[in-house]
């Protein structure tokens, strides 16, 4: 994968899930965890979530919105949307290759 996701190391999978969640609208931490669990069946732990959020914010792919009491929503930036689009296209290519090769096997 030649997108910026490779820089995220062990946080790349969580980051992809977070961006997919934020693609549907801004959310705070626990709402992101719930949404990811809903669409992927994967429960992200808080330590991993905030490790990924820190990196995504640092890359400028997401941005924090004003806090609502103790909760702070995040939203995806234009850069984040472009990176996610690129990553999804790469994954589609991988899936297509996998389907094709499994069909041939």
């Amino acid at each position, binding site marked *: 994968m030649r997108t910026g996701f490779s820089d995220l190391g062990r946080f790349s*999978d*969580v980051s992809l*899930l977070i961006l997919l969640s934020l693609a549907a*609208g*801004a*959310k*705070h*931490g*626990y*709402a992101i*965890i719930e949404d990811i669990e809903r669409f992927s*069946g*994967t*429960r*992200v*732990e*808080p*330590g*991993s*979530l*905030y*490790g990924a*959020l*820190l*990196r995504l*914010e*640092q890359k400028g792919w997401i941005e*924090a*919105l*004003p*806090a*609502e*009491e*103790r*909760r*702070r*929503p995040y*939203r995806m930036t234009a850069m984040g949307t472009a990176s996610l689009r690129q990553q999804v296209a790469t994954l589609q290519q991988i899936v297509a290759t996998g389907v094709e090769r499994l069909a041939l096997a």
Partner: protein
Amino acid sequence: MRSQRPIASKRPRRLTTWAQGLLALYPREWRDRYGDEVGAVLDDFPVTPWTLIDVALGALDVRLRSDLLPRRLLSMAHRIRTSEIAIFAAFVLYCLAWLPLHFVADTPSVWQPTAQAHPELALALGALNFAGFLATLAILVGGIPLLIAAFWRALTERHWGVALRLALPLLAALAVTASAGFLTFSLTVRQAGRVVTPLASLTSALRITLGLTTIVILGVCAATVISAIQRSDLSLPVARFALIPAGLATVAMVVGTLGGLSLLTLVSVEGPQLSAPLPLEAIVALLLLAAAALAIVALWRGVRAARGGSATGEQAVGG
């Protein structure tokens, strides 16, 4: 990240408490920025032993990669504190202008008839005084908890230099106040049934000298306190709390500045006999304007910092 684990129906609160406690392992800058929201997540999250490991690993990760902490996030508490210090400095400037402005009412035999003929003069002076007292009250309400927190933190973390910087001005101010009170009490005499304070019998030159000495002492105390607060390590909640009275003080200083400038203008137009030398009036006007401008800019920057950076144009969203 794990797959398809059933959500725990009965959450062991003890694990949640431990997970909250593990947040102390994170760097202070990270806690200032993310501590509250991760705490909120942990309150709702079904915490398991794996969560504890994940939170601890997260702390290790942030410790190892502290370079990832964006500068603007890292310095949130610092930026709020800097804004509050600037508002305090603005208040000192305001006081330096506010106190000399009383020269207009210094001579009652001139002031009272002029103020009766032009009530707007008394109104402007009243606005200046009211705003000054309100700003003083707000600075005390915001500043005293901040000073206590900074002093306590300096003691518990054994930052003796900071503790000394905070304690000395306080002791000096107390000593000056006590001495002045004692002198006033012991020198006060009764003449023909009237109480005469020692200050009333002093010459103008001595009164000016005493006033200047007080201003210098207050200035040195203020500078030392500012220096101590700059070196102290205040928590974000304390810094955020102090921003509210700092905002009130800013509003009061703006109102007081309008009152002071109106007073100077009215005096020059309607009561030239009350005027002070032109350079003094110009200095007072400049001090008022500088105080108001500094306080407004500092408050704006502090509020931006408290909201987490560039908040302009951000839309309110639900999570």
